[in-house]
């Protein structure tokens, strides 16, 4: 019997699990995918928004501001990449300039102070962002905007939660939920019993809620497509937003922690099957949209394109509440600014909702820190040679584009919530994220996964069960 069952190991399930791990509760996370952070958390803009944009008074506005203020501390404790690059909303017409001024008022109303939101002239913007297009005629500066790595944020939260006792059950798709004295959750693999049940299933939110009782909301998948530019070109120093429209924040230009630039997203309602499909049309839209803000974007430096689905709820705000069924808590419709809001949502869910259902006592031995991640690319030669003395694997370079060593890959596999697939290794260590996209290092990564997981190379998967890469041996054993 668990005290709390969380369904969904995206950023929301992840932050909630870590928050729960501070207390003497037995918690389990059920995730249908092969790894954590595989859907919306995997494919988004990676921005820690300032809170300038949501409509005042909404949960989005409230938790965005609170979450933004928690991110730095969380990133420090969990060793999550975090870059305080600031952001700008750029107007490209007189109409948009009027909207920017309205946005300025909205930002103040949401609780940003006058140091956190500043109106800028074109000349001032040019000093900070020399590549802006000729159309840009003014904008807002948002210095508290930052950039993180969303999947690493989720992985780090779950790893830390597991270090503090939380269980993670992967490839457990929830099929049936019964409520008797407590919840009985049946998955394709097992049956789990729990006193409190938290639904953090993103785009699947209303489907899971309907297994308990008819949901008062519906979640839909809104697809966003993106382009990634190589890390050797810097086209923007801060996050560059267009003026938002009813459809969303528009095509954003985002410098990434590791030096790449992200262009996107599109915004389109699609079926669940199509959330990770890119389209020629979508990518064309991103090209056009991004060129409105910046000139000379080097599209020949594209290293990847991808798509992901945001969970949009029918009531247009976050849903964070106990449902009509006592103990069943929906944390649904957490689309943008959900990544930013996640740590604040987690505190609210645990302290204000779970705390009223269960007797919670803080643990004495709770460790808020994740074991630091070695990133050799950020180390000096002396530091590297110290590390070499401890483990020679840290001097064997596997990924030449991103300079990732065997030591880093082995570590990414052998942690709690460790990598079990080629994509899992890539998401945790960056091996294969560079310009050759794993062309050279994928075979080495397969060898390391095979050795560390003690499985045959033919059983090593690309991303999930059924995605094996090597299908047949052509030669006998040597």
């Amino acid at each position, binding site marked *: 019997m668990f005290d709390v069952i969380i369904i969904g190991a995206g950023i929301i399930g992840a932050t909630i699990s870590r928050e729960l791990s501070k207390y003497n509760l037995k918690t389990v996370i059920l995730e249908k995918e092969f790894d954590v952070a595989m859907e919306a958390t995997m494919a988004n803009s990676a921005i820690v928004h300032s809170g300038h944009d949501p409509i005042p008074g909404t949960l989005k506005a409230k938790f965005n501001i609170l979450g933004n203020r928690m991110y730095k501390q969380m990133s420090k404790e969990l060793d999550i990449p975090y870059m305080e690059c600031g952001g700008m909303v750029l107007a490209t017409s007189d109409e948009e300039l009027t909207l920017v001024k309205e946005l300025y008022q909205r930002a103040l109303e949401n609780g940003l102070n006058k140091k956190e939101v500043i109106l800028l002239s074109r000349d001032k913007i040019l000093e900070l962002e020399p590549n802006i297009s000729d159309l840009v005629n003014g904008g807002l500066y948002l210095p508290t905007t930052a950039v993180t790595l969303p999947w690493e944020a989720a992985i780090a939260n779950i790893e830390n939660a597991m270090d503090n006792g939380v269980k993670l059950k992967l490839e457990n798709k929830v099929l049936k939920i019964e409520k008797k004295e407590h919840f009985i959750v049946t998955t394709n693999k097992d049956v789990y019993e729990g006193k409190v049940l938290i639904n953090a299933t993103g785009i699947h939110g209303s489907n899971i809620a309907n297994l308990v009782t008819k949901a008062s909301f519906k979640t839909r998948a809104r697809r966003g497509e993106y382009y990634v530019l190589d890390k050797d070109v810097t086209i923007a120093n801060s996050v560059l937003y267009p003026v938002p429209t009813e459809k969303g924040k528009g095509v954003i230009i985002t410098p990434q922690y590791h030096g790449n630039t992200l262009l996107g997203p599109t915004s389109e309602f699609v079926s669940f099957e199509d959330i990770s499909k890119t389209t*020629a049309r979508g990518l064309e839209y991103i090209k056009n949209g991004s060129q409105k803000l910046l000139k000379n974007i080097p599209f020949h430096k594209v290293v*990847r394109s991808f798509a992901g689905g945001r969970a949009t709820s029918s009531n247009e705000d976050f849903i964070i509440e106990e449902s009509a069924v006592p103990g069943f808590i929906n944390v649904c419709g957490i689309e943008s600014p959900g990544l930013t809001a996640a740590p604040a949502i987690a505190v609210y869910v645990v302290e204000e909702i779970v705390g009223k259902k269960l007797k919670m006592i803080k643990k004495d031995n709770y460790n808020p820190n994740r074991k630091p991640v070695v990133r050799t690319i950020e180390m000096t030669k002396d530091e590297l040679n110290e590390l070499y003395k401890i483990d020679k694997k840290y001097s064997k370079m596997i990924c030449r584009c991103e300079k990732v060593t065997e030591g880093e890959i082995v570590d990414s596999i052998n942690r709690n919530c460790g990598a079990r697939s080629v994509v899992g290794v890539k998401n945790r260590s960056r091996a294969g994220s560079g310009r*050759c996209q794993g*062309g050279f290092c994928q075979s080495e990564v397969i060898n390391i996964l095979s050795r560390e997981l003690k499985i045959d190379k033919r059983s090593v998967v690309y991303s999930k069960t*059924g995605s094996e890469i090597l299908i047949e041996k052509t030669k006998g054993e040597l």
Partner: protein
Amino acid sequence: MKKYDVIIIGGGSAGLAAALEINKHRKSKILILERDAELGGILLQCIHNGFGLKVFKEELTGPEYAERFINELHEKGIEYKLNSMVIKLHPNKTVEYANVDEGFITIGAKAVILTMGCYERSAGAIGLPGNRPSGVMTAGAAQKYLNIDGYLVGKNIFILGSGDIGLIMARRMVLEGANVLGVAEILPFSSGLKRNIVQCLEDYDIPLYLSHTVTEIIGKNKIEKIKLSKVDNFIPIPGTEIEFEVDTLLLSVGLIPENGLSEVCGIKIDPRTKGPIVNESYQTNIDGIFACGNVLHVHDLVDFVTEESRKAGLAVSKYLDKQLAETKNMIELIPGEGVAYIVPQHVNIDNITDKVEFFLRVKKEYKDVNFVVRSGENIIKTNKKRHLAPAEMEQIKLKLIDLENIKDIKTIVIEVTK
């Protein structure tokens, strides 16, 4: 800090030939740094034949071709380090590398030669629409899995792009028992050598779809289907989609010189070749740093890489003996009508003994045209050509005497004319 005369970054065909050539001309302290566990580079996975026809006048496989150079390297006692990845190159010719035997080491040299080769353009780079399942990989990666590691990646194969590695892998997969359903090329002509079209596709009845591209990848875990469409000037034509059930899509959509190290070092890159800008001595804009082979521009045949690298090696030995003239009388080579690029991009006339050779590629297919080499209005040379194609690298030789005849020559244009 340990000092060498020459550090060569990369122990593939270019690095090996350059090292041996320097050794032939002068006694030098040479070090080759190779990231792999063996010397030879990509040749090792190219187990088909067709290598060496120019250099050895016989037909060898890739490993055999490499072996000849490796054996000679051992005979001459030239130093090399395996499993050693160069992490950073500095303009003062210090090199940082790492391996498991020594850790992280910095060394210096009087000259550095860049011979890092190239990498394959990936699925990500060409923005293929659709899902991102497994089973989509570059032809070279599949070649390594098959020929080095001994694993097959699929049974029902489609190949996008008609680059030579794709064509070679079409045949190779058939020989290994797979079905190769077709090769698609977005251009109206093949990107690979004619001999590979014949020997790898036609001989095995593998269809080549010119002016076609993959417009959707379908598959949840592993690729299940692709949609192929006819294109009109790169734009897919609606209604022309054909579906193929596949478990593998191999990509052979271009090779890109591997210049991550060069760029960080401040070496100027030619956007046309994506390799360093060099002069007649294969020297980059940084004094004492040279480049040759596929890191400079992508070659059709390894024999050409060897020839180019020998020339670079000779130039480096002259550089070490201080026999290379200062860069004064520079002539700039300008690709004219129909020419995609020219290597070298600059020529110092004082370093030419009797002739200079240029390598170039054209932008599209031509029949019965002329290569015209001119400086301003002065026509230096005209070469008749029956057939030109982007897939076939062309060579033009100029005699020193032709250049000396023109006063104050600053630029040379090479162009295609009717």
